[in-house]
């Protein structure tokens, strides 16, 4: 019988949750037991909320164990590996016996994430075993022409997964159309939207699929060189990419006369960013690759005509490239089977915020927001009420719970005022203040504005000041209208996507949560009880006079005799909430 296989998920999330220690412990056990089982590594499995994860594969099936620590690892080895007793209470998912998280797994369709969490990302052999590099071989062995490759991509209907949703095949067609002795392909791995981490997971979990996608793009547009522009904040992704590139070069997937195809020369390297959100914009990204300040340039000319070093360049993001090899291998029709009329295929979403199952999911386009949040995401944490979901990061907007039946495809999401973006979904509950969320995003875009366009540079600053005023309880009549007016001007007068979309979080929250803005301005109240300056703490009749609150109060604002109800001096209260957290008798109200 084959040895039992034990695999640990070692993506960034897993490592942060302690998976490195679990792996070490398993290594020690295995050594002590003389190689009882086969120990392996993989990357993000997607179930971030159950990290660290360990998967055991024996003769009967696979069993994914969640929330593993040293002790539980020992228990699993002792019971499952040695004595064939599955530790059922720790199983999250199993193809044999189901498990607690079956809904999370069963509702997904994995194309982009086909290999993530299924193989060792540092092994090219494992990638090849899972159909890796078969697509580029298929193209070269069957002499499929460049135009036919582009046609397949066009027919598949895939649109850019970085946010804009421009048809990928069209982009390739344009880049192919321009004649030049040098052409480039660039992979945009500057995943900047806070709350989105799907690109990181793909780069860490399946770097070869991105590289293969880029090789195919290079073939289609006759590119001579390529760059993967990756965030410096993702050190593990950079490391695995560089390793994968080295392996691919050794097997001649990169280099001169690739796989024996005369004249097909292409190589790639990784360029690290240095922390600038605007570099996700393609012209700014190109400037940054060239070693300059990452400031956007006017389009046209589009990069397809004059991009990196002024040469025709094709830019796609990580998720888009990760789809390509699958599309070539399985055909356009198989891909177009999934999705809606205008948005084909699948989309990866990063679920985060007040959601029970935060993690990575891949679903066919056309599924509803409610399905994602409740079926896959397991609903809201601590039984609270679903209020809104933020999609598209700082360029996107908040979709309220009432629109939960909206299906996710580019056009339906755009119609709400949000955008699909790169696929971050940050879920908010009743305790999240929507004005504060708008302030948070504007604070972000204001800081990240490169400063080239006046309206983006100064207009966002003015909007931020108004929002700060509102959340501090100093809002004025007419502030909402001022915000709307500034928003329209910034949208009209900014060169790049950053400025054009920066007001979206404010506009969507005004559209759907205007009453919250009004409550802040007119009643000086924060309905979500989140804005500090607008909260009043009061002691109610349940107070038994235990004096705990008086002791934790940093400003000595609480007075009262022992065993007598206490009182808060509102003038001295700094609204830190220490008393509220300390009270064991729910006798402090937040108003």
């Amino acid at each position: 019988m084959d040895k039992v296989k034990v695999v640990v998920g070692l993506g960034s999330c897993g490592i942060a949750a302690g998976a490195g220690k679990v792996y070490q412990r398993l290594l020690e056990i295995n050594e002590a037991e003389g190689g009882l089982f086969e120990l392996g590594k993989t990357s993000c499995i997607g179930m971030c909320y159950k990290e660290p994860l360990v998967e055991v594969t024996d003769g009967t099936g696979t069993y994914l164990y969640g929330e593993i620590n040293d002790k539980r690892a020992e228990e699993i080895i002792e019971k499952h590996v040695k004595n064939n007793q599955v530790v059922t209470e720790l199983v999250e998912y199993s193809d044999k016996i189901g498990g607690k998280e079956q809904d999370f797994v069963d509702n997904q369709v994995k194309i982009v994430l086909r290999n993530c969490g299924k193989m060792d990302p540092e092994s090219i052999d494992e990638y090849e075993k899972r159909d890796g590099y078969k697509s580029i071989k298929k193209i070269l062995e069957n002499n499929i022409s460049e135009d036919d490759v582009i046609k397949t991509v066009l027919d598949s209907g895939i649109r850019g997964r970085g946010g804009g949703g421009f048809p990928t095949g069209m982009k390739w067609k344009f880049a192919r159309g321009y004649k030049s002795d040098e052409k480039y392909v660039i992979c945009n791995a500057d995943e900047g939207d806070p709350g989105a981490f799907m690109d990181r997971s793909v780069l860490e979990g399946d770097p070869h699929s991105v590289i293969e996608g880029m090789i195919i793009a290079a073939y289609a547009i006759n590119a001579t060189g390529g760059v993967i522009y990756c965030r410096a904040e993702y050190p593990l992704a950079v490391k695995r990419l560089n390793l994968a590139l080295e392996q691919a070069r050794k097997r001649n997937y990169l280099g001169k006369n690739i796989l024996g195809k005369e004249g097909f020369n292409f190589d790639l390297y990784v360029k690290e960013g240095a922390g600038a959100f605007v570099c996700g914009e393609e012209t700014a990204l190109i400037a940054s690759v060239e070693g300059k300040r990452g400031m956007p340039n006017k389009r046209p000319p589009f990069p397809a005509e004059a991009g990196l070093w002024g040469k025709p360049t094709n830019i796609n993001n990580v998720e888009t490239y990760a789809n390509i090899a699958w599309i070539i291998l399985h055909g356009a029709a198989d891909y177009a089977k999934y999705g809606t009329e205008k948005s084909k295929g699948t989309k990866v979403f990063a679920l985060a915020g007040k959601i029970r199952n935060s993690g990575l999911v891949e679903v066919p386009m056309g599924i509803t927001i409610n399905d994602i949040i409740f079926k896959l995401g397991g609903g809201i944490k601590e039984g609270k009420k679903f209020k809104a979901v933020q999609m598209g990061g700082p360029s996107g907007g908040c979709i309220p719970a009432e629109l939960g039946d909206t299906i996710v495809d580019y056009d339906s999401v755009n119609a709400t005022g949000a955008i699909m973006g790169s696929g971050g979904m940050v879920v908010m509950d009743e305790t999240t203040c929507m004005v504060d969320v708008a302030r948070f995003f504007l604070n972000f875009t204001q800081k990240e504005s490169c400063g080239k366009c006046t309206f983006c540079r100064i207009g966002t600053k003015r909007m931020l000041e108004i929002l700060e005023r509102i959340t501090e309880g100093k809002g004025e009549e007419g502030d909402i209208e001022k915000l709307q007016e500034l928003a329209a001007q910034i949208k009209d007068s900014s060169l790049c996507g950053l400025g054009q979309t920066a007001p979206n979080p404010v506009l969507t929250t005004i559209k759907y949560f205007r009453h919250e803005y009004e409550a802040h301005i007119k009643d000086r109240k924060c309905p979500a009880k989140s804005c500090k300056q607008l909260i009043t703490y009061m002691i109610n009749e349940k107070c038994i006079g235990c004096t705990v609150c008086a002791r934790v109060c940093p400003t000595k604002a609480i007075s009262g005799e022992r065993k007598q109800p206490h009182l808060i001096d509102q003038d001295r209260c700094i609204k830190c909430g220490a008393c509220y957290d300390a009270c064991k008798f729910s006798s402090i109200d937040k108003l």
Partner: protein
Amino acid sequence: MSCREKQQQIKETVSKICAEFNNDPNELIAILHKTQGHYGFLPKEVQIAVAESVGVPASKVFGIVTFYSYFTMEPKGKHPVSICMGTACYVQGAEKVLREFESRLEVKNGQTTDDGKFSINTLRCIGACGLAPVVMIGDKVYGNVKPEEVNNIINEYS
């Protein structure tokens, strides 16, 4: 060491780093990454040395250093505390965690403690949203951090 000697030393170190990148001005970002990795930060003298080695005006180097948030002209603490302020971390209470670090270490965001041991800064999303709120100290990542755990975390380094 005299000022002149110190400057000479910086020049030598920097020119070695720049040579690894063929003194190519297009590689300025990579050069600055490496230089910051060596010194921990990028003071004026170092930027001037980079500019001289690569053959561009110092203003160009300064422009890049100030544009990208990864580069810093202030020395960081021995244990840099980075608090993620991505959306997911924010809605999960990252701000409270930041305030707690600030009050425990008695420095504000962006500053370094007097003994040079700790510095605090905030980060854009580091992509570990499933574990929000997230704090990094050096390369070590702490997930699901609660304000009441901050003291224990700091104590690990004292």
